[in-house]
């Protein structure tokens, strides 16, 4: 009885620790992301003055928060055992839904705040603005992803088809986000911002591979 109670206590402690570590990682990634536009100003920022500069910087912060949340979202969607044990499936699902809305909100804010200082009619369209156009595509994918999920629930659309499309879109978003990030701003030609991308996006991809591989091995062993 005491052994069982001790085991339960230890499990609860472990779950709390996991929670703390995971939340710490998320806050660390988000905090570093917020700090990057201050510590590593791109030359574009040099030529913005007053309110324009503030808007541009705020836009960059929103963009970096969007990427952080996209990575966290994809890990929540992956539902690794540790995450599920620490938070519980229902609360992960709640997080997934709320976070989706937050991601779209930050992405829209990012686009607006970046575009407003240059003029909303002066859009970066054309071959030489391909990184910006990838960003536009990403925004469209994010809105589609959330819109389709909302529509599935509202009109009870076929689950299997939704799930397949949802997964493919999620992968597209996860893979296109670092491309947009690395090429859209000179900030990412510097080491620390690049390390941030490698840590956040690379870490997410490595976790995906590890969890999927271990799941396959477990099935194979059975």
């Amino acid at each position, binding site marked *: 009885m005491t052994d069982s109670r001790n085991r339960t206590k230890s499990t609860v402690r472990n779950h709390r620790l996991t929670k703390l570590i995971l939340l710490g990682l998320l806050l660390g990634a988000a905090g570093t992301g917020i700090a990057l536009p201050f510590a590593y100003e791109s030359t574009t920022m040099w*030529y913005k*003055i007053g309110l324009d500069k503030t808007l541009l910087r705020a836009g960059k912060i929103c963009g970096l928060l969007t990427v952080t949340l996209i990575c966290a979202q994809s890990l929540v969607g992956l539902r690794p055992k540790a995450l599920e044990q620490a938070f519980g499936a229902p609360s992960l699902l709640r997080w997934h839904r709320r976070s989706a809305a937050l991601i779209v909100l930050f992405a829209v804010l990012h686009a607006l705040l970046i575009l407003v200082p240059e*003029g909303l009619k*002066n859009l*970066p369209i054309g071959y*030489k*603005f391909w990184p910006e156009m990838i960003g536009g595509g990403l925004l469209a994918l994010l809105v589609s992803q959330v819109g389709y999920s909302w529509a599935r629930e509202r009109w009870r659309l076929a689950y299997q088809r939704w799930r397949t499309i949802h997964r493919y879109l999620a992968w597209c978003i996860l893979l296109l986000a670092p491309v947009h990030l690395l090429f859209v701003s000179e900030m990412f030609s510097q080491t620390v911002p690049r390390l941030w991308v490698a840590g956040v996006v690379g870490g997410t991809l490595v976790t995906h591979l590890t969890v999927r591989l271990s799941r396959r091995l477990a099935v194979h062993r059975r």
Partner: protein
Amino acid sequence: MKKYKIFTLIAVIVTLGTSSAAIAAARQWEIDKPHANFYFSVDHIYSKVRGHFDEFSGQVHFDPANLAESSFVFDIQVDSITTAVAKRDKHLQSADFFDADSFPLMSFRSTSITDAGNGVYQVNGTFTVKGADHDLNFPLTLAGIKDHPAAEGKEVAGFNGSLTIDRLQYGVGTGKFYDLGIVGKDVEVFISLEVLADK
């Protein structure tokens, strides 16, 4: 019979009028776009940033023997500005400089051309920037007129000219980047044109 005479008279007048107009108009030349451009250079702190405009059109009527009927008309698309840095180009198109969305074209229309000697022609005209007209005079050197070495049946003429303009007088920028010592106000403009005409 009387009717026929009147028609003949009208036909003669029209023919004479058309041919005299053709004689009066200076020779029309077509801009050879791959070999023509409007380049500029502006100070950036210590260095010089160079650029040009990819999209422009124009009409050139030029005859050294008939300057009164010669003219230069150029329309430059502001959003085609190129300085080899995409973000800088976008900034130059913004309201901080050209405001390309509100004023997509810059144009020059000559009003008179005078011979300044030694193959130099003084071109006087109206330069419209951001919707405002400004008088502009600049020298254009006729590099020559000859048979085109590569295109049979065509003649080529070449013009080169340069001038320096104060961009702030043309409303290109409010002066904040000049006051900060970042972007100069004097812009060196270099016009280089090859124009073609059938022989």
